[in-house]
């Protein structure tokens, strides 16, 4: 049915050999620890001119919204929404994409008697979404970079 193991050239790894990740927050941290694990990708501490691609995590927002309530008006489900906005620049500092948004959400059951545990659950879901966001961001950068290269030929 046409499925094949993803090859090296396709949308795997990272489109540029050297990359610098700018910005704070969980997603940026996870991106900085995930990229070096890809073979052949060097994560540099500072943006070296004309050699380093740059991924800028502009902002990261976490919202906890009441999703459902029970018959006494108390929250029974929360939805935690992570919105990450980022830009990506080619090694020659030209913009590959700017102000892109990745929005993810997870819902979780809320136990009003254990708010500390609920904070823990919300944080765990945020970390999980941040990992997901890293993959989605890399997918986008690789896809646009691949089209970039195709047009260049």
């Amino acid at each position, binding site marked *: 049915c046409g499925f094949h193991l993803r090859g090296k050239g396709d949308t795997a790894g990272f489109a540029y050999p050297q990359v610098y990740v700018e910005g704070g927050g969980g997603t940026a941290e996870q991106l900085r620890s995930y990229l070096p694990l890809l073979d052949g990708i060097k994560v540099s501490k500072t943006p070296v001119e004309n050699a380093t691609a740059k991924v800028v995590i502009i902002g990261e927002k976490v919202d906890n919204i*009441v999703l459902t*309530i029970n018959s006494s008006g*108390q929250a029974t489900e929360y939805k935690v929404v992570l919105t990450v906005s980022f830009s990506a620049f080619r090694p020659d500092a030209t913009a590959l994409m700017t102000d892109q948004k990745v929005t993810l959400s*997870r819902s979780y059951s809320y136990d009003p*008697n254990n*708010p500390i545990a609920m904070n823990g659950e919300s944080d765990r879901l945020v970390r999980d979404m941040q990992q997901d966001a890293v993959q989605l961001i890399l*997918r986008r950068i690789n*896809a*646009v970079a691949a089209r970039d290269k195709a047009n260049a030929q």
Partner: protein
Amino acid sequence: APPAATDVPVNLSADHVEGTQPNTLKATGDVHIVKGDEEYYADWADYDDPSQHIKAGDKVRMEKNGAVMTGRDLDYFIDRAEGTMQDPEYQFAGGVGRGDAVDMLFNGQNKYRFNSGRFTTCPVQTDDWYIHAQHLDIDYNINKGEATNAWLEFKGTPILYMPWMNFPLDDGRQTGFLSPALAINNRNGIDVTLPFYWNIAPNYDATIYPRYFGKRGLMVGAEFRYLQPNYAGTIRADYLDDKEADAGRYDLYFKHAQKLADRLSLSLDIEKVSDDNYFNDFGDRAAVASQTNLPRQGILTYAGDGWSSSLNWLHYQTLQNATHTNDIPYALSPQLTFSTAPKLIDGVQTNFSAEFTNFTSETKTNGYRTWVYPSVSMPFIASYGFVTPKIGVHATNYQLSSPNGDDMGSQNRVLPIMSVDSGLVFERDLNIKDEGFVQTLEPRVYYLYIPYKNQSNLPNFDSAQTDFSYSQLFSENRYTGNDRINDANEITLALTSRLFETDTGIERLRATVGQRFYFSSPQVSLDSTSLPETNKSDLLVSLGGQVWRNLNASYDLQYDLQQKSTGYQSVGLNWAPGEQKVLNVRYVLNRTVAIEQLDVSGQWPVSQNWYALGHVNYSLLTADKKPLDTLLGLEYNGGCWGLRLAAQRYVTSDGGNSNTYYFLLQLGALGGLGTNPVSTLRQAIPGYTDIFPTK
């Protein structure tokens, strides 16, 4: 000496001109004077160029950078833009305002005073509303209008008298009365708020809002906000001498974030209310639903190079409700956390996290709990997949004591945690209606081993059951917190398929099926009850994404194959075909929190300028079979004004209901008149877009 002539020539044309030197002209017969972008038309005009003084009559028309004023007897100095005009009818550029008056003064560039005049932002021929005022000062340099002895006329009927009022000519921040808020509520009667905004300085502002309740009296509230490079925060307090409850009722709210040093930052979050019913009476739905435990928290965080640490004090004020008593949560007095991920060997991820907490409670077991959790993992990542073996040791020590302080001994727990996560990535290109996609097929296998250790004798400070959801499939512990670490000898199999747009890499659809198989049945439970014997978990199905151009759908299922029962099921549809057009439907069944509900919300234009909106949250539980939260509203966009009517009814924690009728008349740039329920609407209706033209 006469003021220096500006560098723009003046042109005068007329039927008849008498002139004396130096350039003092007396013109009659359809006089037309042009200077730069200013034009004056009159039956006659005397113009003295050296002093730039025009006297013109009887009928005069004056145009200046887009503004048009017609009237009688203009007496005006062009360069200083000062003078008077009788019987003016004025219209400012860009339709930002027009009206008429008995007479007007020009008080300098873009500053006007109209005496016994009218002002509106409605276009010509639409006289839907006017501000009448004895004095109306309009200053377009700072975009502020001010009216004294003013009254508001809407569709011909006077609706509000204000001795003094000001209004923004755009939506900038400036001191003055914000739009009064009006609502009627079953618990409070009439509910009128007249907020006064005080723009103290660019980084300080305050809002004072006296709020009058028909049944309860006058509540005075004030909010002060401050914003500095290194710290920012908000302080808010409300106080009411409640006639009905015959008690003083108040709420305090203090949020502060500060960068103490380069790597050290502090955040404070202190909330307190006077009584359990406070939010039932004065909060909105979200406040009622979420404010069961009000935090009093201080956190110090330090971000080192490759490590971070935080010190956290946290106490709660727990609001009880009539239907069932809420457990008072533990307090962290304090909690110290530390985590680091040093890069010791290339390709090897080492993590070390530790935490010390002093859990205190008046009723339950107190204790110092210290745990450390070092772990090492060696992720191998290739384009076609990954394998991530991980091994760690979770060691915990408890020093317990009873609420009144006598020692209850110490407990220890040391557990190795071993896991191997692995997955492959298959891809194929796919064309759907000549749009290129990449479809992935991602099988994933996750093996987890944690030996069993009886933990029923350990206290439970911060562990709770989590949903068996997509993200929980691949986590080490089904319980949050650190008091219960589930024993595990299990393997989780999952298959995920995703659809990405080839050109942009944006994920359009995602589907996952997963299940966990237990080689030995899990035994660790939150309390001392024993878990049922099982060798496999519920089946988990999750689908979601953009199924059509502007139709998003999601489906989540957690199905117990043995008992043939559904633990969790939710279906969501969100259709947003255009501006102010959105429909959301969600069904959810959740055994963990015992709810089964249908949630329908939407916003839709019903006729030329009328928009309907609504939100119904209906509980299908046999015990309920009633709506828990209903919101119905109508909005009218009259071009230069808008009307918002909304009625909301939701259940409250004291077993009762809160019925509120919102009323908002928004007059162009004047901000709203009446409660502005937009934030409530936006929360109740995902995808709601505001329909009012904020000039």
